[in-house]
C-alpha cells in the first residue's frame, strides 16, 4: 500500500516507523533491565523474604523487606482514588448538564489547567499549608502522614479522571441528553440514568488510570507521606510508598542489600502498572466496539 509514496511522505513514514521501533526497544530494554537486576532475587528464593520481612537496614540483624511499602502504596492509591473518583464524576456531571453551561465550562478549564501544574508544586503547597493543618487536627502525629498524602494525591489525580470521563461524555452527551430531556427527564435524571450508564466503560477506564497515576506518583508521597517504613495503623501514621522507597534508597552503596530491594520494588510497580494498563486496553476496546 505504501509503494508509491512521494519522497517526503516516504521520509515521514520511515521516521515514524523508526520512532515506533525505538520506543518499542526502549520499553523492552526497561523490562530486560528490571528482569536482569531482579534475577538473583527471583532465582535465589529471596523474593518471599523481601515481601514479608520488615525494613530494618540498621538493626543488629538487619532485614530488608518491603511489605510495609507495598501496603502503604496500595492504601494510599486506593484511598486517593476513592476520594477523587466521586469528586471527578461530580465535576463532569456538573459540566455536562447539571450546572449552568458557562460555569461548567469554566470548571473544566480549571481542571485542565490543574494537569499542567508540576507535581512538585502540589507537594510544596501541601508541605506548607496542609501538613500544619493536619498536625493540628488533634489526632497526634507530625502532619506528614497517609491522610495528607491521600488529600494531595486526590487533587493530583482528579484532573486525569475528569478528563478521561469528559472526553467520552463529549461524544455521548449531546444526543443522549437530548433524548432524555425529550422524554421529560430533568438533566440530572438524564445524566444519572442514561448518559453515565452508557459511559460506564470509560468510567472504569478513568478509575484504573487514576489508580495508575496514584501508585506511580513519587514526589507527593516522598514529600508529605513521612516515609516511615511501617504498615499504617491509622490515617495519621507516617508511611513510605514503593516509589518513595526507590527514590530514598537509590543513592545508597550499590552493593548493599538495601539497594537490591529497589529492583524488587521496581518489578512490583512494573507488573502492577502493566497489568492495569492491560485492563485499560480491554475496557477501552469494548467501549469503542
Amino acid at each position: 500500500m505504501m509503494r508509491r509514496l512521494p519522497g517526503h511522505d516516504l521520509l515521514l513514514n520511515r521516521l515514524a516507523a523508526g520512532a515506533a521501533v525505538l520506543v518499542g526497544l526502549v520499553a523492552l530494554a526497561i523490562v530486560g533491565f528490571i528482569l536482569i537486576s531482579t534475577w538473583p532475587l527471583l532465582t535465589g528464593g529471596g523474593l518471599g523474604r523481601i515481601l514479608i520481612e520488615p525494613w530494618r537496614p540498621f538493626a543488629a540483624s538487619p532485614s530488608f523487606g518491603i511489605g510495609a511499602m507495598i501496603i502503604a502504596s496500595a492504601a494510599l492509591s486506593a484511598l486517593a482514588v476513592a476520594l477523587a473518583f466521586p469528586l471527578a464524576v461530580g465535576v463532569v456531571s456538573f459540566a455536562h448538564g447539571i450546572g449552568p453551561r458557562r460555569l461548567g465550562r469554566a470548571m473544566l478549564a480549571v481542571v485542565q489547567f490543574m494537569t499542567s501544574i508540576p507535581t512538585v508544586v502540589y507537594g510544596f503547597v501541601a508541605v506548607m499549608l496542609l501538613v500544619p493543618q493536619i498536625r493540628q487536627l488533634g489526632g497526634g502525629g507530625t502532619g506528614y502522614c497517609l491522610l495528607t498524602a491521600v488529600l494531595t494525591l486526590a487533587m493530583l489525580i482528579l484532573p486525569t479522571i475528569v478528563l478521561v470521563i469528559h472526553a467520552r461524555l463529549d461524544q455521548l452527551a449531546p444526543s443522549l441528553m437530548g433524548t432524555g430531556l425529550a422524554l421529560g427527564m430533568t438533566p440530572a435524571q438524564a445524566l444519572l440514568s442514561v448518559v453515565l450508564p452508557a459511559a460506564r466503560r470509560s468510567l472504569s477506564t478513568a478509575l484504573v488510570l487514576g489508580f495508575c497515576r496514584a501508585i506511580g506518583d513519587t514526589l507527593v508521597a516522598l514529600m508529605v507521606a513521612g516515609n516511615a517504613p511501617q504498615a499504617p495503623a491509622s490515617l495519621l501514621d507516617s508511611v513510605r510508598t514503593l516509589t518513595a522507597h526507590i527514590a530514598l534508597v537509590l543513592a545508597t552503596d550499590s552493593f548493599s542489600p538495601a539497594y537490591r530491594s529497589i529492583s524488587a520494588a521496581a518489578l512490583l510497580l512494573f507488573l502492577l502498572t502493566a497489568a492495569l494498563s492491560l485492563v485499560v486496553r480491554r475496557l477501552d476496546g469494548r467501549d469503542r466496539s
Partner: protein
Amino acid sequence: MRSRRLVMLAIVTLASLVLLAGCGDRKAEPTARSTGPLSAFDGLSGSLDIAGGTAHIPVMNAAAQSIMEHNPQIRITVAGGGSGVGVQKVGEGLVHIGNAGRALSDDERTRYGLQSWPFAVDGVCAVVHPDNSVGALSGDQLRDLFAGAVANWSEVGGPDAAVHLFTRDEASGTRKVFWKKALQKGDIAVGANVVASNGAMKTAVAGDPAALGYVSLGHLDAQLKAPALDGVDVTQDHAARGVYPVVRKLYMNTRGELSPLTQAFIDYVTGPAGREFVQAAGYLPMPE
C-alpha cells in the same frame, strides 16, 4: 528535595560549560607561570572529571575554577549525584575523582581498590524548633528520644508535647555519622519520619514546634535550635577542636595509580588553598 539536587546538577553542569567555553577563548594565550600552589598545574593538560556528594560541590567548583583560570589547557567537570553515585562512578572508572560524605565500606574498598582523601570536616547536631524550651540534652536522653523510649518533651524538661521524630534516608552520610557518634548505633524509632536532604530536614523541624531532627552544621541557623550535647555547646569551633564529637569527614576517592593531574588536584584541595575553599563553603578544614 531530590529535585534540588537535580537543579544543583544542572547549575553545576552549566557552570562547567561556561567555564569550558571561557577556556576555549583563551587557548591561544601562553600558560601563566607562578610560584603559588597553582604552579603545580603548570605544564599539565587534559581533563579531570569529578562526581558524587553534593556537599562537596562548592569546594570542588572553587578549586576547579581557580585551576582552569590559571591553566586553560586543563578542563575540570564537576557533577553531583550523591555519595553512593560518587563511589560507584569512580569505582567503574567513569570519573577520576568520586566524592563521598562517608568513609568507604570495606566491600567498596576491596571490590574497586579505592583510595580515600579526606579534605574537610563537617559536624552533625540534633536540632529542635527555636520555641522548644529544651536547651541541653545528655547523650542518654538523646538516644531515648530517638529510640522512642521518651515520647514526650516534658520528660526531658520541655513542654508537654509529643516528640515528633525526623530522621534521614538510608543513603545519607549525615544520618550515618549522627547514628554512629551521637546515638552510638542505637535504634531510631520505626515511626520516625524520613526526609531526603538537609534542606528538607530544616523545613520540617523549623515548621513543627515539637520536632526533633538532626542537620549538618553548615545548615544550622536561626530557624533551628541545637541543644547542647552532654554539656558541650554546638559550635563550629567546638567541632573543629574535637570538643564536639559528632563530626564526619568529606572525602575524595580515587582508583588505582593517579595521573599527574589528579594527584595535583588532590594536593591542591588538601593544601592551604583548599582549606580556604572549605571554610568559604561553611565546612571545617582538616586538623593539621
